[in-house]
């Protein structure tokens, strides 16, 4: 009985959406308060994309194709992947770890609201402002490299592309949540978090397309959720993967979501027993 209630604090089923939209709205407003920071983040992102594109342009030199990628495809890969990445990434692990460490979690535990659903609504709201900026900055980069970009008009592929983004958003969120929960046991999670971030960037194809690596490696990485936050959607978009592979990928994502949610439930329940709510 007791266990059951501890779990429901993670996620309260609620038929009314207003609670969630209110949380999201508050974050949108917060986002608008910090226009400058968000703008500067975008500048950094933009610069990174431009540098990557310039680097690949230099590597290609007079070669027209590297490992099956033309330069235009490579540029599109970077832009499409960058777009997906900007949509799905989050900074939640630290938020959650801090909530636990500093005892802010207490304020959620006493309210009729699940912490995970709070975090989820909060993140949807938080990302909306930066996403709008990202879309804008992407247009700027796109204009710079207009001639190099490949545009897709395949509706099926685009639908898969966006479905994959939505699922990847959930996966990234659950992953960060899980990493953050480790703060129940150890006071800081930064080291682990940074390591996972680097690994994720590599495994997701954020540094370069995974297909530059051996086939077995690509196949293994398709079993992990990371590739679906960058490499797979970008490849789908480029038409280098077909709809079947895309659907297969979505199935893998769903399995990961279920798996991660189960692990989070378990960890959450154990963690709350350790929680001391310091600072109040």
């Amino acid at each position, binding site marked *: *009985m*007791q266990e059951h*209630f*501890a779990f*429901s*604090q993670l996620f*309260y089923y609620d038929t*009314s959406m*207003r*609670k969630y*939209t*209110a*949380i999201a709205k*508050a974050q949108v*407003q*917060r986002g608008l*308060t*910090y226009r400058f920071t968000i703008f500067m983040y975008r500048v950094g992102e933009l610069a990174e994309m431009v540098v990557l594109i310039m680097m690949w342009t230099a590597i290609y030199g007079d070669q027209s194709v590297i490992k099956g990628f033309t330069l235009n495809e490579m540029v599109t890969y970077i832009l499409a992947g960058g777009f997906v990445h900007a949509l799905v990434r989050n900074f939640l692990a630290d938020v959650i770890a801090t909530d636990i460490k500093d*005892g*802010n979690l*207490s*304020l959620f*535990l*006493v*309210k*009729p*609201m699940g912490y995970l659903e709070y975090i989820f609504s909060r993140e949807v709201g938080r990302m909306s402002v930066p996403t709008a900026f990202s879309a804008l900055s992407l247009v700027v980069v796109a204009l710079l490299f207009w001639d190099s970009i490949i545009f897709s008009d395949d509706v099926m592929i685009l639908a898969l592309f966006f479905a994959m983004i939505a699922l990847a958003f959930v996966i990234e969120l659950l992953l960060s949540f899980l990493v953050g929960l480790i703060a129940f046991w150890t006071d800081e999670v930064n080291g682990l978090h940074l390591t996972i971030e680097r690994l994720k960037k590599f495994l997701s194809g954020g540094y370069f397309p995974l297909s530059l690596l051996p086939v077995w490696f690509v196949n293994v990485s398709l079993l992990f959720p990371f590739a679906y936050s960058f490499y797979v959607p970008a490849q789908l978009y480029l038409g280098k993967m077909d709809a079947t592979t895309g659907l297969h990928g979505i199935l893998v994502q769903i399995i990961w979501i279920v798996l991660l949610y189960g692990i989070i439930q378990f960890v959450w329940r154990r963690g*709350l*027993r350790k*929680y*001391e*709510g310091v*600072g*109040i």
Partner: protein
Amino acid sequence: MAVIQVNNLSKSYEFYRREEGVLGSVKSFFFRKKQYAQAVKSISFSVEEGELVGFLGPNGAGKTTTLKMLSGILYPMSGTVQVLGFTPWRREKEYQKQFALVTGQKNQLLRDLPAMESFILNKEIYGISDTEFHATIDELVELLGVRDVLDIQVRKLSLGQRMKCELIAALLHKPKVLLLDEPTIGLDVVAQKNIRDFLKKYNKEKKTTIVLTSHYMEDIKELCSRVVIINMGSIIYDGALDALVKKYDPYKVLTVTFNNSGVARAAVEKFGTVTEYDPYRCVIKVPRSEARQRAAALLSSDLPVDDILIDEVAIDDVIREIFNQR
């Protein structure tokens, strides 16, 4: 039936000791000795509806730990708690909609937004209707006098204004039980008084059951007819504040003023323990039962007595005494 019923409640915290210096740190990196500190030792008490009870005790006495268990943040090691018929750490929605926790140290308001946004958030979280929401806000804002700060970023508010907004946020859903953890900490005297006056009035009008912790004697003196004193995890007193003085302090205080050329210390010492001495003004502690006789004896002596005041020992001193004894 009691609104809050606590029976034999205990809680320990885990902690590690670390030897000083780098070597100590390295050692404790490999070998850590787990130790337990018992924060609350088998305490029992109950609170009736509409009561305003003060928890008093030094830092680390177990006041906050008890409040945390009442609000369901912590699981106890043993013992039972029933608040409004619920076991708090099960964190049932029905319970959470009927109580509120306000802490002076941790704020629930979103710092980067005006307080109004946090109120709206709570409105949705607690499922408060529009009309009810506006009526409650209007009333509370009026009572606390913060109408003109609701649209200012919370982090730009003064501590006093912020605390008042915290109270509003916590009271929007009209909780039946209000738990306050040091609500006046760090506030200036005026703001402290504002908050005290508000709590007093609110408790009287709404019959809300309030449990508050504080280090400030003023808070307890002003607000609470009943005080629970906790020290080192145990309840050492539970009852009316004035009865505490009689129970724990067998003395009264005579403040005697002299005229003419004053008196020598030795001359007054035979009437009781002299705690303050000045040739023209002495404070003498005397046994409670003999206070009258001693005062009469002083008057009829050949000392140049101008005036005598018989007083209770200051409550702060009584409590300090109690804490020192343990």
